[in-house]
């Protein structure tokens, strides 16, 4: 079959095998020929080629809940369980996931392998900081338990390890108690990037914080943005406040012609959005679904970029140079006549100890670009700006970074391959991305 990531670029031919349980997973992993490489694939929500290989092991049927301890606030489940399913089960009990990415369609295994983050990274860290234990199937077929105290090295390599150390079978997660399913949102308009940074710093104690940016505004307006701050609504502890609702979504049925997304249409969208936000009320109460997952309302929105797909470019720059670095990036993009439809800026808290995790203290900017030949030289130039500012790119979104850029920006890569060599000496777990980045051959 033809396989691709969420960005629909690149595409590759692959065999997808979906084991019904851990036993059949073991058979697949252990019986595999030494020459063939495989990689786990959860919900297919990483953007680039990190879940592409000759053989894909899908976790769709490893979707069982194993135990929920309401007192200890922990949940144990299979790697294929989607975050949305967890919310469905936990919310009525007043429990919630401490870290949520921008979609609830990702699997637990994928969230751990990419060590995903959310709008509260500056306060609560990334997804894996709330993972208590994982059961990892190694290339030998052996299942080992890893945690901060047990097989610690392997745990640090596997959290954020892009599935390269083995296949995650099960995990135990820490949950958080929430008063209700509503979020009180406050929005602050910033007329330029500097103002946006100031707003973010002023509100650093806010639980959730993320800024939408008009990437196409230039000159004095460059970086005009809206900062969204969120806090849990103090509910009246009514049962209805914790009800889970399945929201209907509209699906994009096919790839729309990519010329519809051009500079004028993006500019129109971005400036209309900005002016609407500017005049809208500054505080509102939103359901968690609308607050955390606005894009889930439009399923298959990735088709809007046309059949050639798109590339998401997310980088982080450490604090001091971030404002200057992000300004340089935005200038470069507008000089090249390119634009990003959705641009998001967020502040990160401290990095964790995981070897290949993306977040580190500083600011992260996310841009998405329609896939076209002229884009790649621009992204190479952006890579250089990122490296100059001691930043790095997010592996879950990357589809084209060079080996040199990766190794220069992820200093723990050597420690990572030392651990990988111990558990997977023949590189059975390898993706197109890991080959490109020189983590596997």
């Amino acid at each position, binding site marked *: *079959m033809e396989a691709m990531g969420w960005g629909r670029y690149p595409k590759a031919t692959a065999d997808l*095998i*979906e*084991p*019904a*349980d851990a*036993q*059949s997973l073991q058979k697949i992993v252990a019986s595999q020929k030494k020459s063939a490489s495989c990689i786990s694939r959860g919900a297919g929500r990483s953007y680039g080629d990190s879940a592409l290989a000759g053989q894909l092991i899908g976790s769709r*049927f490893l979707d*069982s*809940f*194993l*135990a*929920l301890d309401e007192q200890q606030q922990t*949940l144990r*489940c299979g790697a294929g369980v989607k975050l949305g399913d967890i919310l*469905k*089960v936990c919310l*009525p009990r007043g429990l919630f996931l401490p870290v949520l990415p921008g979609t609830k369609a990702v699997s637990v295994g994928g969230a751990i392998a990419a060590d995903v983050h959310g709008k509260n990274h500056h306060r609560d860290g990334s997804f894996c900081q709330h993972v208590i234990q994982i059961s990892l199937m190694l290339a030998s077929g052996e299942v080992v338990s890893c945690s901060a105290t047990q097989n610690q090295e392997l745990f640090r390599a596997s959290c954020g390890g892009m599935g390269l150390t083995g296949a995650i079978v099960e995990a135990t997660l820490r949950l958080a108690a929430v008063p209700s399913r509503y979020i009180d949102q406050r929005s602050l308009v910033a007329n330029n990037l500097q103002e946006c940074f100031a707003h973010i710093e002023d509100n650093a104690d806010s639980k959730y914080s993320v800024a939408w940016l008009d990437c196409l505004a230039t000159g004095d307006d460059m970086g005009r943005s809206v900062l969204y701050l969120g806090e849990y609504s103090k509910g009246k502890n009514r049962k209805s406040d914790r009800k889970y609702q399945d929201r209907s979504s509209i699906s994009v049925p096919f790839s729309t012609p990519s010329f519809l997304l051009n500079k004028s249409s993006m500019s129109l969208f971005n400036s209309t959005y900005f002016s609407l936000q500017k005049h809208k009320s500054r505080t509102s109460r939103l359901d968690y679904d609308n607050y955390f997952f606005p894009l889930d309302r439009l399923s298959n929105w990735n088709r809007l970029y046309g059949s050639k797909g798109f590339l998401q470019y997310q980088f982080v720059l450490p604090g001091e140079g971030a404002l200057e670095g992000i300004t340089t990036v935005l200038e470069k993009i507008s000089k090249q006549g390119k634009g990003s439809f959705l641009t998001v800026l967020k502040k990160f808290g401290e990095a964790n100890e995981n070897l290949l995790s993306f977040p580190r203290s500083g600011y992260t900017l996310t841009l998405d670009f329609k896939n076209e030949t002229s884009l790649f030289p621009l992204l190479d130039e952006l890579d250089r700006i990122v490296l100059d500012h001691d930043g790095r790119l997010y592996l879950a979104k990357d589809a084209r970074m060079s080996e040199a850029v990766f190794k220069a920006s992820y200093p723990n890569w050597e420690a990572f391959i030392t651990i990988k060599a111990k558990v997977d000496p023949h590189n059975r777990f390898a993706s197109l991305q890991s080959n490109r980045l020189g983590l596997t051959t």
Partner: protein
Amino acid sequence: MKVLIIGATSAIAKATARIYAQQNCSLHLIARNGEQLEALRSDLLVRGAKTANSSVLDLNKFAEHGKLLGAAIEELGGVDIALICHGSLPDQEKVEISFKQAQKEINTNGLSVISLLTELAPTFIEQLGGTLAVISSVAGDRGRQPNFVYGAAKSLVSTYLQGLRGKLLTHNVHVIDIRPGLVDSPMTAQFPKGPLWASPEQVAQKIVKSIQRGSHTVYAPGYWRAIMFVVRIIPDFIFKRLKF
């Protein structure tokens, strides 16, 4: 609500059980693989099932059906819905040339269901209510070259249900025949998938809805009713030449 699910570890049964668990029903699960049953049991309890018990049984041991069902219903404290889901998808080329193989498949997909229904019916008649829901298949609608042994077993079930439905009508017991089309589950892992394939979750939603509504013959998803209508009206002199 008290729900008894037979063949509970099949993908469709699992997805259906999860919906009932979410609705805080009491469940009793029967299947062959004890380990998978145990995993499903804890899954359902986390999802909200009031109770979830299970018993292990190879459904081809017809003689044990009565005793086991009796014990299961007693443990459940009665039964509102009995859902029969088990089945196996044989390799047509193998069962065509071996009667022993064919017999085994017809036992699994056809006769074992008749045996279960025979044992279950008196309980439902006695309590004057409830629903007997059985998963057959669109394959039973007409004997097609690539899977007519499986199809024959499924049409045995469908025909039986048509009669049973009438028989139980006066006892206020409802009988539903659910005919799924192509379902993307571990049972069909070896087939290439296309746009007609449905997920087990889609089929499960349809099952729960039709049990609630009291439907009779249900195609899941619904477009299979139109497809199978066309398949049924093709004249034999053409149909015998079709290889699909």
